[in-house]
């Protein structure tokens, strides 16, 4: 068979594997949406219907969301699937899944075109395959997260930046993409500048030859930053960093930075233990499969030996700068913030596999081992994600809120008070699933926050959607009104239910069988009779 055709078919095979694990049951596993996905989905819906986000802001530079801000590109891109599919779970995840496919494709191109060895096509395929099957990549490509699109834009920018060292015209495209990446996710704001600077320093003689192109490229990059400069002093631009950094917490900064930085290179965090936050990890599975530690070691050894090659130096540069944004924050091993590092490590692992396979003489053994590894990896991912994660972590995507919405629809004549103490997104979630008119949302809920959109992080904490009031339960008054109180077992305990004469109406469980929400109807008459406190509401009964 023609060599090029063979490579093309194999590439299609890799993309097919990547596609199956990214798109299969995308709308139903995980069985719900994360808080940020809810915000992105409803904002995209609002943009389509009104041209404004849920607070009524026209084309925001950065989206206000539950006391923080979301980088804008993901939400703007989500308007496309939302336009065709409506504001569904599938629609908000598609951009992330497609971004994953883009990363797999560009990984192939980067290794194929720039790596030092012969038979680059095969190594390119192997690198693309490792990215395609790596747990971190599949897991986060199935969540509507800005970091996925950030990585896709960044890696494509990296590719064109590398190409610009051969043909200078690509420098404009590279700066355009790296500039856009700063609007895609927080880490890229720092990484894009560092990568651009680092690569220019490594290839300074080349760029000196094409000063005109170089300066035009820099102007393109600077122009794309203008919207961010416009909000630089408002507080919105640095809000996230203020929330997550340790600079103002009285810890020894150098030691803290060094410990956070090295944690991202720790085999314990990379191969053995999942991310501490349950919503960002699978049970019993880290960002890479355990077996990958062996090729990781071989790949690293190989790279060190080839350290004089310019592309290898670029990989080391990326490896060096990639953990910096994450190391500035307090969270230990925050996977979302180090996608670029995990991408480089995926290449190191693929290189290690390639080195190991080279040592095996017989071709049949080589392919048998490779196929066995792929099947074993994908099977263990299936077990950990489609079985364990689905059941054990369904509370992280608020599975029970889907059933709550059905109850709200069925009991339209009842009044509800829904506690938001532990799910601040519950109101927007209801608005999203019921396709609540964004114009009404903007007018009734969003308006007070519009004037200080970029300068204040206040957000909606007491509001009404259809027959439901979304707010913390007010025990002084709520129990004297005829309504249904909804909350998790911490919001409404059994003692409180007994004391306030509440009657259990429904219990909602997550997929693991744990009760996550309870609805109680109040009994104002009984409560008035039993209580020493004479509520004004008792008089009207």
């Amino acid at each position, binding site marked *: 068979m023609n060599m090029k055709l063979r490579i093309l078919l194999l590439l299609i095979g890799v993309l097919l594997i990547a596609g199956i694990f990214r798109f299969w049951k995308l709308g139903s596993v995980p069985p719900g949406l994360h808080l940020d996905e809810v915000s992105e989905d409803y904002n995209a819906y609002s943009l389509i219907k009104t041209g404004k986000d849920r607070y009524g802001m026209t084309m925001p530079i950065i989206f206000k969301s539950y006391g923080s801000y979301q980088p804008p590109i993901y939400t703007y891109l989500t308007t496309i699937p939302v336009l065709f599919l409506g504001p569904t779970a599938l629609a908000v995840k598609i951009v992330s899944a497609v971004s994953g496919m883009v990363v797999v494709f560009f990984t192939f191109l980067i290794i194929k075109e720039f790596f030092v060895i012969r038979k680059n096509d095969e190594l390119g395929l192997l690198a693309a395959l490792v990215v395609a099957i790596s747990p971190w990549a599949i897991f986060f490509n199935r969540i509507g997260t800005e970091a996925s699109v950030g990585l896709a834009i960044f890696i494509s920018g990296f590719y064109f930046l590398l190409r610009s060292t051969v043909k200078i015209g690509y420098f404009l495209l590279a700066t355009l993409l790296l500039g856009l990446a700063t609007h895609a996710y927080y880490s890229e704001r720092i990484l894009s500048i560092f990568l651009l600077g680092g690569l220019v320093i490594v290839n300074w003689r080349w760029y000196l030859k094409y000063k005109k192109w170089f300066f035009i490229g820099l102007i393109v990059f600077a122009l794309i930053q203008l919207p961010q400069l416009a909000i630089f002093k408002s507080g919105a631009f640095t809000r996230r960093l203020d929330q997550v950094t340790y600079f103002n917490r009285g810890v020894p900064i150098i030691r803290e930075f*060094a410990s956070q930085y090295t944690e991202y290179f720790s085999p314990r965090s990379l*191969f053995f233990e999942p991310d501490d936050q349950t919503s960002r990890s699978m049970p019993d599975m880290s960002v890479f499969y355990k077996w990958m530690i062996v090729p990781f070691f071989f790949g690293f050894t190989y790279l*060190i*030996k080839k350290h004089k090659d310019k592309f290898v130096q670029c990989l080391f540069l990326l490896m060096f700068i990639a953990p910096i944004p994450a190391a500035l924050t*307090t969270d230990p*091993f925050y996977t979302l913030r180090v996608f670029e590092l995990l991408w480089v490590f995926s290449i190191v692992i693929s290189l290690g596999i390639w080195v190991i396979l080279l040592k095996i003489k017989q071709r049949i053994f080589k392919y048998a081992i490779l196929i066995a590894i792929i099947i074993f990896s994908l099977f263990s991912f299936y077990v950990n994600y489609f*079985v364990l994660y689905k*059941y*054990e972590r369904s509370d992280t995507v608020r599975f029970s809120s889907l059933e709550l919405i059905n109850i709200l629809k069925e009991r339209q004549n009842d009044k509800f008070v829904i506690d938001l103490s532990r799910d601040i997104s519950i109101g927007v979630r209801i608005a999203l699933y019921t396709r609540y008119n964004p114009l009404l949302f903007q007018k009734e809920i969003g308006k007070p926050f519009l004037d200080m959109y970029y300068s204040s992080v206040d957000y909606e904490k007491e509001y009404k959607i259809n027959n439901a009031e979304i707010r913390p339960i007010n025990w002084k008054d709520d129990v004297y009104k005829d309504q249904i109180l909804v909350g998790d077992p911490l919001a409404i305990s059994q003692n409180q239910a007994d004391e306030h004469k509440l009657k259990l109406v429904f219990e909602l469980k997550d997929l693991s069988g744990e009760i996550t929400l309870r609805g109680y109807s109040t009994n104002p008459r009984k409560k008035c009779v039993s209580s020493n406190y004479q509520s004004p509401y008792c008089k009207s009964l």
Partner: protein
Amino acid sequence: MGLGLMSLSFFLVFNFKIPTFILLAVLGSFLLKNTFDTNLLYVSPLEKDKIAHRHEYYSQGLGRVYKNRIGIYLNYSVTPYISRFSKNLAYNLDSNLYFFANHPRERGGIIEFDKFFYISLPIFVFGLISLLSSANVLPIIYFAVCLFITAFLFPGYDLGPVLLFPFIVTVLYLGVIRIFDK
């Protein structure tokens, strides 16, 4: 123990293969006898509950692939022990355990402390690069063997994974040599 570890470090730094492994065998046996992690063979009631729940999830999610002798045996009799062993293995592989008192992923119920000064970490990195680019396999074999032995030891004991200290000393030595050579 201290003297033994110092001697081991010396043998490893100067590439004395036979004394290294003899001393490692002695110290390893001593540690295995005195600080063996009995939790490796014990499944707590909480874990049993988790396994029972998982039995249900696997049955629903995997069907016949799980509901057979092998699948059930793996869930009840293999996975809990392998999982505990790999956890122990992972603790010892974390560089932050040695240089940052396991910060920022400290373990509950265990007193964590710095085993080496954190400012020596850059030297360690240089040493590691030097080791990986050289043909010196003794420290690597030593590391692999010690890692395996240490995974059987109780991860919370006061001294920590002491058998791995000579390896770190050797890598630091290689780092110093590399820096001064340049």
